[in-house]
């Protein structure tokens, strides 16, 4: 009788054969320009998929990730949408040059953010859509029906946009990649170049799509 790992492996192979589009590791998304994240995701944010980045501690570096993503997207001349659930983005913190390709949606409530993200993810003009839900009421976020997330995932799957969901607690069900920022930055980082701050960010991979891709490759 095959062991559980063999059964899972066989099941993965079966699913990969039946649904090759789902199992294929997506690529072509923009780089986050944060080494730990790009390494965890295998080169950059996966296009056509959701990636959840959980800022488990205060000053975990989530905003630095957004700033670095904007810089990288500008270098690649790609367009980014930032759906800001709690209106926390500070334009003055990012060089002017890295703002010209940004579409910033300043929401007042998570409901607005979900509606806006649903529209923008379907638009074919963005390389990345960042849905930042940090700062939104946890109680409201926990009540978000799973169908909202599945709808967002289905919308992303059809296109070439990479969707980065920033949260303070794991929220997205069945998300292919969930990374956790669990090491806080300190005041000592305040004077360091941003590039080195980004280099110091530590990421823990809580959920990864990689095994399926490896199984496919193998």
């Amino acid at each position, binding site marked *: 009788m095959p062991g559980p790992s063999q059964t899972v492996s066989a099941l993965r192979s079966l699913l990969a054969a039946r649904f090759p589009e789902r199992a294929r590791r997506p690529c072509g998304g923009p780089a986050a320009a944060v080494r730990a994240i790009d390494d965890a995701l295998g080169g950059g944010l996966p296009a056509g998929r959701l990636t959840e980045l959980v800022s488990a501690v205060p000053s*975990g*570096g989530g905003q630095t990730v957004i700033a670095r993503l904007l810089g990288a997207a500008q270098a690649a001349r790609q367009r980014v949408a930032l759906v800001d659930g709690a209106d*926390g983005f500070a334009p*003055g913190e990012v060089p002017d040059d890295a703002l010209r390709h940004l579409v910033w949606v300043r929401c007042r409530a998570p409901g607005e953010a979900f509606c806006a993200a649903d529209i923008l993810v379907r638009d074919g003009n963005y390389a990345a859509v960042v849905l930042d839900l940090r*700062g939104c009421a946890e109680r409201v976020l926990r009540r978000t029906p799973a169908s909202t997330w599945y709808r967002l995932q289905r919308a992303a799957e059809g296109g070439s946009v990479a969707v980065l969901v920033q949260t303070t607690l794991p929220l997205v069900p069945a998300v292919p990649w969930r990374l956790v920022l669990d090491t806080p930055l300190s005041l000592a*980082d*305040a004077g360091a170049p*941003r590039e080195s701050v980004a280099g110091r960010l530590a990421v823990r991979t809580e959920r990864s799509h990689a095994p399926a891709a490896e199984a496919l490759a193998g």
Partner: protein
Amino acid sequence: MRYAVLAVPDFALHALRRGEPGLVGRPLALVAGEGRRARLTEVSNEAFGVAPGLAATLAMSRCPGIVLRARDPGAEVEAHRLLMAAAFTLSPRVESTGPGCCTVDLQGGDPARSEALMRLRAAELAGAGLPLRAGAGATPLLASYAARCADPVLIVRDPKSFLAPLPLLFADPTPGQEEILRGWGVATLGALTALPKAEVGRRMGAEGVLLWERAAGESQRVLRLAEPARSFAAEWAYEPPVESIEPLFFKLRRFAERVALELRGAGFVAEKLSLTLLLEDETDHRREFRLPEPGADVDGWMRVLNSHLETVRTDARVAGVRLVAAPARPQERQEGLFDAGLRDPASFWENLARVAAIVGDDRVGTPVPTDTHRPDAFTMERPAEAVAPPAQAPVHPPCGPVLRRFRPPWPVRVVCDAGRPIRLEEGRLEGRVCAALGPWRGAGDWWKPGAWVAETWQVEMEGGGVYQVTCTGDGWGVEGMLD
């Protein structure tokens, strides 16, 4: 082909039906007269067992469920304007020949293009509830014969073979002429034109010659040209007033289809749309929409209008609606070779408009920091069409973690020791400060109203997290988190 005729059979019936969604697919007949004298004038295909001329009471007994309506002059005017708008996209020389019929002078145009346009318009108008028949030929008369036989477009290239099998009734003979010709065994136009014209004239007089010429499709006439639309607007009054948005959507789409065609015919696109809802209490609700990208795409307009209407609440029922499109010349530009522009500009701008309808016009766009030292000063601007290449790296690259703002700042009481914050109290963020950087002092706009002064510190809390606290004229506040 030199002339085209665009005609809608059973025009009054279709005009009525396209204005009322509830009539689609139901047996429908138009009635003239009142009481016992009421007779059917036009009958839809769905009404079995009845025919024009039948008494209304008899029609109701023969076809249960038939809807009997009087003609609707307002709907006919609107439908005729749509037809004229379609005609003006073929040529600027258009005659309004009659209700549901217009004649277009195609001379000088490219025949292949004209034919393609006629097919396109026929399909568009069919979608808009007007089953158009278009015919083209060397004379207006020949074109009108072609339109009567078309399905939906017929081009007459060989008039003789086209006319030969057509019944004599096409040439409108008088009852007397018809009787004489029947006696001669002439039943088709081909049979009549096979007779020498002079001999027909000798036996039937000048009227006979005219009939022969009509049968040969030779009758020429000068078109009475109509003026193209100069204002691109539509208005409708609801009787009774409406309470839900479905009738509004339906009517607005009909208007939009016509106005978009009028704009296209005049070589314009819409730059702005102005929507007015006339309310029952004699007030109105007005809204102007600057289209993200000027265009004449009805679906794009409807998305913009729908996004707004879905959020509108009025104090009274809607008694009328008015839609006005501001014309503009279409944008024509060539992309740079290395421009990273929009893949789908129409979808980009439409989606932005939809998002703006959700969060507000002033809360979507590209942020541009203002040239001031005032904290958090920026404006929201329209996103650029193309992503510009990166500029040279800044001399002073950005340092430190990025601030995530709390808008508005969280009020807090800051306990200081020797001018340095050591503890935060009485706010959403409380605790001992284990390290602090600062102060950064700033002031500005002291020469005008709205002067500001601020003292900023970055503090690291004992429980973790680096925050930015600022003291302004309103007291201390946590501006955000360094993240």
